[in-house]
């Protein structure tokens, strides 16, 4: 998820970002998770068989620039509004994972004129519980060694996906991507920790069908959280995939892609 750079670049409002554009058909904007995104993403690979996937690294992630004025998730949302207009994307499917799911939800609250459907995978971004109950694990208070267990269902599979976290034997470019992604995630998600206190009260503005898809063994945000998230939308539905953690889309990409394709194939509002 952080090893290799993306093949294309675009300049959006003066910010150069790297991106992957793959497949044919209805456009699908893929918004990656906090640890980043790279060329080998298996979910994007699976989705690109049916859709034209546009998958950038967010500003500050991978090789995408971070201009000084981009310091919060709202800046990223405005960046993506510009990107959607710049690439003239219409009837757009937006799929976001974890931190990218938060961005996808925020983006949809700004207006769904160009958006057809929304898919949130193990998304963060909303606060449901009271002030003394944390909904989202404080991932900033954890060590690198905890990543496999915290973010995945299967430690061994996780270590394969993460290159064994063997930074010594990775290229400096890959390690730099990893370190940069961590810093940018912290910039955007430090406090309130990975949520926007106002987002919940804005979700009613999303008038398109929303699939909230969850790893059944998510230890960062629970399936209960996912169900509440789905219920907060006008046309939200919830589904979960077994043997999958917070980054379950990397552990079970075919199962995730299957659910997404099924949701996208259904008639507009019947799916909800």
């Amino acid at each position, binding site marked *: 998820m952080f090893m290799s750079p993306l093949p294309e670049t675009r300049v959006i409002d003066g910010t150069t970002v790297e991106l992957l554009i793959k497949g044919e058909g209805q456009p699908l904007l893929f918004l990656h998770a906090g640890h980043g995104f790279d060329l080998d993403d298996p979910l994007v690979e699976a989705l690109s068989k049916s859709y034209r996937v546009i998958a950038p690294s967010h500003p500050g992630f991978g090789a995408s620039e971070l201009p000084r004025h981009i*310091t919060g998730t709202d800046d990223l949302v405005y960046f993506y509004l510009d990107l959607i207009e710049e690439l003239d994307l219409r009837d757009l499917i937006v799929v976001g994972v974890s931190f990218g799911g938060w961005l996808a939800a925020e983006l949809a609250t700004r207006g769904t004129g160009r958006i057809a459907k929304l898919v949130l995978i193990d998304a963060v971004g909303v606060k449901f519980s009271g002030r003394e109950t944390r909904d989202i694990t404080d991932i*900033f*208070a*954890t*060590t690198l060694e*905890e990543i496999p267990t915290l973010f995945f269902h299967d430690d061994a599979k996780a270590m394969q996906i993460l290159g064994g976290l063997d*930074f*010594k034997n*990775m290229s*400096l470019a890959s*390690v*730099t991507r*990893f*370190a*940069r992604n*961590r*810093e*940018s*995630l*912290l*910039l955007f998600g*430090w*406090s309130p920790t990975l949520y926007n206190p106002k987002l919940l009260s804005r979700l009613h503005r999303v008038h398109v069908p929303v699939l909230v898809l969850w790893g059944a063994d998510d230890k960062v945000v629970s399936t209960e959280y996912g169900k509440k998230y789905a219920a907060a939308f006008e046309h939200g539905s919830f589904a979960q995939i077994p043997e999958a953690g917070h980054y379950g889309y990397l552990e079970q990409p075919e199962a995730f892609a299957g659910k997404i394709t099924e949701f996208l194939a259904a008639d507009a509002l019947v799916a909800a």
Partner: protein
Amino acid sequence: MEFWHFSEQSMHPAWDSIQGPTKVLVDNRFCDPEVAHKLYNRYLDEWVIADKLGYNIFVNEHHASANCMSASCLLTLAIMARQTKNARLLCLGVPITNRTDPYRVAEELAMIDVISGGRLEIGLVKASPFELAMSNQSPARIMDRYWEAHDFVVKALTHKGLPFSWEGEFYQYRNVNVWPRPMQQPMPPMWITASGASTGRKVAQLGYTMATFFNGAGTKPLYDAYKDEYFKTHGKPASIDRFAYLAIVVCGRNDAEVQERLKKVKPYLEVQPRTPKAWSNPPGYESVELNAGALKSGKTGRINFGLPLNPTQQDMADGGILFSGTPDQLYDQISRFSDRCGGIGHMLCLSQAGYLSHEETVDTMTLFAEQVAPRLREYARQKNMELIQAAE
């Protein structure tokens, strides 16, 4: 050379009971308020005694720590402003990246300067990475925030006249009007801590006193960078009073006494670094380049104060961590270390560490003040002349 008595105001009676981290996550039931009451007052007494012995006073702060109960260096200094007569009063420092309100910092600093009759010295620091867990301030862009807070405090303290407004990236104020203004004009002396050359150069440009803590072999390149940059910026050599160094100082009349005290002090070296791993370097606290380099090399910082395993008394002195001995030995150790660094002008003496009792602390301070300090003052005077001559 000036001497500054320093103590971390530790909750050492609890150390034996604490397993694992001694800060951030440590259960606060280990901090018994009754014990803390006695300890705080003991440490404050030691600073009052330091004043009488000719030391200056240096205080710090940490949070959620069994090694340092000083939750605000300015609270401690406020007490010292009233209870001492001659000592310079140094906060090193106020962690301005953790304070949400630098206006209030400026007001408190000015108040201490005025109450003390103009004895305040101001250190503004980035703060340790683990402090961000408690302050909740972001590690990302921490240095941008540091410099804006610094610039604000300087302007707030030096501004004369009607109120001004500040609309920065991190701080916004509609009406800045510090009452009282500091007694020292244009403002009290400034200090910054540094460990690497790039920060050292920035401090040199500002001309502030630069302090470095337990930096050992890293000190010479740091001081050299400062000297180089200072000369370039100010067109004259930096005098020795720009350079401060912190280490533990233990003094005794004879070897038996020194060894007895060393045994009590050494646990500090084991307890102090016990930081929860997740908080030792949160993303953003250091640059991406530095973090990537550290991941790739597998080196995550200096372990064991950069000392060898089971360090000898000599190792600890040579490493600039712990100077210990009779007055003669201490003079030799400190002057030799200072020579190797290129000249120390302020010795920041951690005179109470570990389990050292009040009586032992006062005794080590007294021996040092009476039998070591006068000789080191003369040494530094000579050294300063050498440095200035060599530079010119």
